């Protein structure tokens, strides 16, 4: 067991703080008068308590009250936070929760209908059939070919 966990040390510490019952206090003081270990420990604790009065007394460099007051007044003059905004006046908080999902759903529905209508109208608008690019394989000049058939080197030699 470490010194600081000793029940006697805890009791002596409480004795120095005057946070011990009167009867226990008398018993402990009587014990400390006869026990060299407890007597020395009690003297050390009392001396330590006196040492705290010697701690450096540091202070803030300026009047913090003035600084805080200026900041609070600046916050106040910037406008009270409680003033209702335009959005709040137009849409009370009770309606605001329902309004946004309803607007979102209506927008999504309108966009869906418009896109669907465009798909249905597209065949009527296009007059020509789409030409398949793959059919170009059967053209006289293959896709990517540079010369017409008459001047093509390969065609001439084959004749």
């Amino acid at each position, binding site marked *: 067991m470490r010194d600081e966990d000793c029940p006697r040390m805890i009791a002596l510490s409480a004795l120095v703080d005057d946070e011990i019952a009167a009867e226990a206090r008398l018993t402990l003081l009587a014990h400390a008068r006869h026990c060299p270990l407890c007597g020395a420990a009690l003297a050390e604790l009392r001396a*330590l308590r006196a040492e705290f009065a010697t701690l450096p007394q540091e202070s803030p460099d300026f009047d913090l009250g003035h600084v*805080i*007051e200026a900041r609070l007044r600046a916050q106040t003059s910037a406008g009270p936070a409680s003033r209702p905004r335009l959005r709040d006046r137009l849409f009370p908080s009770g309606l605001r929760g329902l309004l946004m999902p309803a607007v979102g759903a209506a927008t999504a529905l309108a966009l869906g209908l418009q896109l669907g209508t465009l798909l249905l109208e597209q065949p009527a608008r296009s007059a020509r059939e789409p030409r398949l690019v793959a059919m170009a394989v059967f053209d006289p000049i293959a896709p990517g070919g540079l010369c017409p058939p008459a001047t093509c080197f390969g065609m001439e030699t084959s004749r």
Partner: protein
Amino acid sequence: MDDASAADEAGWIARAQRGDPSAFAALVRLHQQRVFRFILRLTGSREEAMELTQDSFLKAWQALPGWRPRARFATWLLQIARNAALDTLRRRQLVEFAPLDDGLPLSDPAPGPDELWAGRQRGVVLDRALRRLPFEQREVLLLREVEELSYTEIAALIGVAEGTVKSRLARARAALLALLRHTTGERHEG
């Protein structure tokens, strides 16, 4: 605090609760030194202590409308200050225990043992030793020895049982005495 000061304080609190900045400024002036020193001894940094002291008072202003006089106003301020300091130390990751024998000197090498315990040097040595304690021991010692709070008040302020305060104080004192003996190389008795 005498009766007149207590009455002044009660009046300023009531006015500040109704939103009067000048009344709150008077409260700040009354308590700024105490709050500043407490934070400085917890954090060890003067700049941080200045900033945290301001932050603590601004938080107190915001929370003031809901404050009820269940505890002393000063104790409530110290609680706000303590939480602010603890948050900062957690961010700095300095809350963990510093080992006693890490080779760092607690005192300046120049003054001898006799001088260390004389006058201001004694306070400086004690201050340095305090900073070497774990946060939880340092705060209970400061709240008890410097702020002179009762075990009940300390327990409420840091959110532990009174029995924990009692045992933590005993451990803190034993650790501090060990540090001081280590520093001076002598037994510390009054």
